[in-house]
């Protein structure tokens, strides 16, 4: 236990550190002050969170938490002053830093790492928790999916009726966590036309949460997300409080759907492609409604929302365009591939595989990604990153002609090679893992094409 220092002094010290770290250009000072505060007094975060007059909301999921949180911010930003960790610093220290930096904030809006959720729940005592999905992800870092679900269950069991749980009913594990909450809002997709013909190879929660029998799916939309029922014991998707119906996918341009909540329907126009972004928008809608937004706020906020770097943002580089899509686990990468192919498969792609801790040191997941539909249309693929050769092997054994694969380990050289292979007026698709995406963003920013993320967050 560290000696008690008045909170004001700790906060001042940590804020000074934030200024220094930003001056030192160490990455926007996103977590350094939080780590400092953490060292001085771990309980300070609890006090800072308790000062938010409208409380806090947490968003966790394997995939889509950054986008979902940004959507909620777009919906609620006009209504409340937000403390939002928009830079993606989503561990306890990142939440602490955001609380420190957001003077005068009314509502906390935090995306939270799946593993860090129990501790953040305990400290922040949120009024709403939005749980999006659980896919297999970085087993070397998070452990098995069921263990994560167990820890979430324990965290939710400990909260009182003042906390509303907003859950994706289409995910059997997540929907089941919702059942134990006193207050729960369930969201899901309701448009059988967009169901997949079969569960994907990497589908995770295929077995009944209650009895272990394989679920039957009336519709599987993304990975194991869908409308499921256990033929043995009847465990099934909970009834939907917030649903997306009449979904229309418009290639890489966007999506439209009917948002149904509380007996009312609104038409949502989203400038983000793919069914998985419908899930993100639905999660954001359900959470924003829980936090006091109206359906009109939701419609307007989502209509204005645009993609972020690495999440379908397009960047003009000279007379070519760059489309960067973060890939980090089989489920997310499968959706990126599916959406790209639906929008007209690209002919050139740069794919970057790093194996730092934040990427997952175990790179075996690339073999579980269904890259094949993408490979079918590719003329050139540049494999890059610290595990470029492994990635090239994935494509070689996936059936891509070896002559079509170039291994260029350096990211900057790989980007230039990709641009060179892209015709004038054409678009280069880049699929990087997390640290490769950060490095790429830096390269593109240094060339003057994109804002640094701490500027974007302002």
């Amino acid at each position: 236990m560290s000696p008690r220092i008045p909170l004001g002094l700790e906060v001042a010290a940590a804020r000074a550190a934030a200024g220094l770290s930003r001056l030192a250009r160490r990455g926007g000072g996103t977590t350094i002050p939080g780590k400092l505060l953490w060292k001085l007094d771990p309980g300070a975060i609890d006090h800072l969170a308790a000062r938010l007059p409208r409380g806090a909301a947490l968003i966790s999921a394997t995939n889509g938490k950054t986008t979902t949180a940004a959507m909620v911010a777009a919906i609620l930003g006009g209504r409340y002053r937000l403390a939002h960790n928009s830079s993606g610093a989503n561990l306890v220290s990142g939440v602490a830093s955001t609380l420190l930096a957001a003077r005068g904030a009314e509502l906390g809006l935090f995306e939270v790492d799946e593993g860090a959720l129990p501790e953040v729940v305990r400290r922040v005592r949120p009024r709403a928790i939005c749980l999006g999905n659980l896919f297999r992800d970085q087993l070397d870092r998070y452990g098995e999916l069921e263990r994560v679900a167990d820890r979430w269950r324990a965290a939710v069991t400990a909260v009182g009726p003042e906390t509303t749980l907003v859950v994706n009913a289409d995910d059997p594990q997540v929907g089941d966590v919702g059942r134990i909450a006193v207050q729960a809002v369930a969201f899901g997709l309701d448009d059988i036309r967009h169901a997949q013909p079969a569960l994907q190879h990497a589908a995770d929660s295929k077995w009944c949460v209650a009895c272990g029998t394989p679920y039957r799916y009336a519709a599987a939309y993304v990975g194991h997300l869908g409308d499921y029922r256990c033929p043995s014991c009847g465990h099934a998707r909970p009834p939907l409080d917030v649903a997306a119906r009449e979904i229309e996918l418009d290639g890489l341009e966007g999506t439209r759907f009917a948002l149904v909540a509380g007996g009312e329907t609104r038409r949502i126009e989203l400038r983000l492609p793919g069914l998985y972004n419908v899930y993100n928008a639905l999660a954001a809608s359900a959470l924003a409604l829980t936090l006091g937004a109206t359906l009109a706020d939701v419609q307007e906020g989502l209509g204005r929302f645009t993609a972020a770097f690495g999440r379908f943002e397009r960047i003009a580089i000279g007379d070519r365009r760059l489309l960067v899509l973060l890939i980090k686990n089989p489920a997310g990468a499968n959706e990126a591939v599916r959406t790209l192919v639906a929008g007209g498969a690209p002919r050139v792609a740069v794919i970057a595989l790093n194996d730092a801790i934040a990427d997952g040191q175990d790179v075996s997941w690339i073999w579980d990604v269904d890259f094949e539909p993408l490979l079918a249309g590719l003329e050139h693929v540049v494999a890059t990153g610290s595990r470029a050769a492994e990635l090239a092997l994935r494509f070689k054994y996936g059936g891509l002609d070896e002559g079509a694969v170039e291994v260029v380990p350096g990211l900057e050289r790989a980007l230039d090679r990709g641009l060179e292979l892209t015709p004038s007026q054409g678009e280069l698709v880049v699929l990087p893992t997390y640290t490769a995406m950060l490095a790429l963003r830096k390269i593109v920013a240094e060339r003057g094409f994109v804002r640094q993320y701490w500027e974007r967050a302002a």
Partner: protein
Amino acid sequence: MKLVVGHLYPDYLNIYADRGNIAVLARRAAWRGHELEVRPLSVGDEIPREGVDIFYVGGGQDREQALVAPDFAAKGGALRVALDRGAALLAVCGGYQLLGRFYRDTNGVEQPGLGLFAHETVAGETRMIGDVLLECELEPGERRTLAGFENHAGRTRLDPGATPLGRVVAGFGNDGESGYEGCRLGLALGTYLHGPLLPRNPWLADWLLARALERRGESPDLAPLPDDLEREAHEVAARRAHERGGRA
């Protein structure tokens, strides 16, 4: 020549990209003019005593492993017969554990295994996670290395006299103490190494294919392939094992 792989529980045990191993066997057979048929053998399916050249069993999460364990134990007799008749086997991670006598979890609950390999596995408090490099000698005088990734809570202890798959150069291995990894019994190999194992260690894929050809009465000689990418991937993985393997 047509060769047959019997893929055990592909719908349950597939967590560490096991299909990568299957893809490598299939392509490397095809590049040498052989056809590889992959036959899924899941819960309720019978193990053919004849006709399968290579059995493959991968790893799953605890829940999936528990779901298949009783079915797998019941297949033990038929699998033994098939192996006695010359089939080869590669078991990775969870599949490797299930081939021993038992797996005891942290609550002390024991899951019976097939007892094919002379080993038993007891879960420890911490997981052993990281890159691994092994040295093995499947054929006398031919020392080769295997580079992979391990992630297991189980500590597997071989009986005295049981043959490990290899010696740990860097990483944890079976239990983090013995300095050995995996188990070998005739043409049956078990290991914790995924990654997946075969793409970056193609010599092992070729060894399995050669045994399958022998079983069919064919020459086990396989034409060499240009494995530059495979070599590079192996080198990077081996370097990783030296840099950061085997750290608790």
